[in-house]
């Protein structure tokens, strides 16, 4: 592994040069009370001091509204067109290590089996620049799901803020290439001990106890009671860095149109509803259970990975203040 340093005063130039060379830089930006990943047009727009963005940067590889293909109707013939690949590289700048781990999960999910054309098209084109957490809040629980606040999983480059500037770990070839392309902003440096720059994220639950309980948790009798405040807004899933469910919808007129895939969530009642009206997950508590079990059990069975990365977004965003941490603790307590 190679290590670099980018001086505090250089980071601005670095970002602006990225933009100047036509790269699309996705970075945290303040909107009202919250911070969102947004396309940045200059470094000033970036909110560098934030604990967690309201939404993850998953839209970089899985946009909320994506063309699967377009079609033109020509008499009785239909012409199908693949969507255009993005021309420019995308840089996801300043994402938290939990999000990095989430991108790692997304890559597994989308590419391991039946590789997804659209995801790959964007994923290959995206460079992930992580940023070590120097602080956390009571909703952060990455350490409880086996991720550390300086985890480099899923990142191409990992930045850690130090007194001298940003300490850069070059994790992948992609990351290395980027550094080489913009070499003049980087200084060579030896590996350092990141510990003192890294936040201490407390364990919020006992993951081994959870593992024990979760496989039989489908029939747990308290799902209904613990999920009563949930009114099914789905914000947890939309803001989740690892939620991947989508819907496919056409928009067309008589001349042609587009088949889109758009974000969807199992939190909505209509998600599983059959045309006949039968709904396998009729109640919100069942949908809530599905989400929890999906995060902590189903993907574990499927890929051997938990799909909760402990980013805490679902807790911060929940209008009814439901907490996945409390939920998991309730399950482990029985």
């Amino acid at each position, binding site marked *: 592994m190679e290590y670099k340093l980018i001086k505090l005063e250089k980071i601005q130039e670095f970002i602006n040069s990225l933009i100047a060379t036509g790269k699309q830089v996705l970075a945290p930006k303040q909107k009202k009370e*919250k911070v969102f990943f947004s396309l940045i047009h200059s470094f000033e727009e970036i909110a560098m001091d934030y604990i967690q963005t309201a939404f993850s940067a998953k839209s970089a590889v899985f946009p909320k509204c994506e063309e699967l293909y377009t079609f033109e109707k020509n008499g009785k013939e239909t012409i199908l067109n693949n969507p255009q690949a993005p021309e420019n590289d995308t840089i996801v700048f300043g994402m938290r290590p939990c999000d990095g781990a989430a991108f790692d999960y997304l890559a597994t999910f989308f590419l391991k089996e039946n590789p997804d054309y659209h995801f790959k098209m964007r994923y290959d084109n995206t460079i992930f620049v992580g940023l070590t957490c120097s602080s956390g809040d009571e909703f952060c629980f990455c350490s409880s799901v086996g991720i550390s606040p300086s985890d480099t999983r899923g990142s191409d480059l990992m930045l850690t803020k130090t007194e001298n500037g940003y300490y850069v770990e070059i994790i992948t070839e992609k990351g290395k290439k980027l550094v080489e392309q913009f070499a003049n902003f980087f200084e060579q440096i030896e590996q350092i001990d990141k510990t003192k720059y890294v936040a201490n994220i407390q364990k919020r639950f006992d993951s081994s106890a959870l593992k024990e309980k979760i496989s039989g948790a489908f029939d747990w009798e308290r799902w209904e009671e613990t999920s009563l405040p949930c009114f099914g807004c789905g914000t947890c899933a939309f803001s989740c860095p690892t939620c991947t469910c989508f819907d496919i919808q056409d928009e067309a007129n008589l001349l042609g149109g587009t088949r889109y895939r758009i974000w969807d969530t199992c939190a909505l009642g209509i998600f599983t509803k059959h045309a006949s009206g039968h709904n396998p997950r009729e109640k919100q508590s069942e949908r809530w259970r599905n989400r929890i079990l999906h995060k902590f059990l189903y993907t574990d069975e499927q890929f051997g990975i938990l799909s909760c990365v402990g980013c805490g977004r679902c807790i911060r965003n929940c*209008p009814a203040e439901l907490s996945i941490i409390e939920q998991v603790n309730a399950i482990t307590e029985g």
Partner: protein
Amino acid sequence: MSDLINKTSQFFSSGIIDLFIGYKKGRLGEGKPAFFTKPDQLSELIFDENCIVNLAVYLRKPELKKYSKIGILANFGTLRALLQLAAENQITDGQYLILTVADGKVLEFANLKAIEEYVANNLPKPNPERLALLKEIESKSREERWDFWTRELSSCIRCYACRAACPLCYCEQCLVECNQPQWVGVPPTGLGNLEWHIVRAMHLAGRCISCGECEAACPMEIPLGLLTQKLNMTIISNFGQIPGTKREPDYALSTFKVDDKENFIR
């Protein structure tokens, strides 16, 4: 607070209710929705001006069907929502035990009529900050307004949290889920988003009880409450109807006056 807890626990012990929907302390000290099934849980029950979630939204949950009688601790918005729901035939008089706390005293409403009177006597003035914000937007040029809303609404991810949080969005099939024909584009393009927010605002015009839950629930910080607020103001000033103040149907858009004023019809 002890008065509230005592009273509520009496309702439990006398078997009047078997579920109580109220609030407990949330992460920032504000009230968060809480469901109490036993009197010994009630020590956590709180009520103050920071308990803003509209609890009426929960009444449609199928999970609640198994309870024989439900008590609800209603803030002002919830009271209005209950009236509006009654006017729309969704709840009946006496179906719920309805409490509120006013001036430190617990009030139990004997019936919807009592709520009607209480609401009539306590209708708040519109929030001046909101009015100022609305005014600011209205004072922009047509193009600026279009630009403003296009940008704001393009953020919408169509999670429908605004709908889920609204106590009056109780349709079994929302218009966006109607696909024959597909009235509103489902993909969150700028167009689909605009259509959705127009539909939402129009459907709540004359029905919105101004609790603000839609905007509070919006994860994208879209000021969508301004749309419903504006339409409500239009309804009140043109037709004199204030939603959520009557227990009988009173809907400006299902009635008319021969001399309704307009200035845009040629």
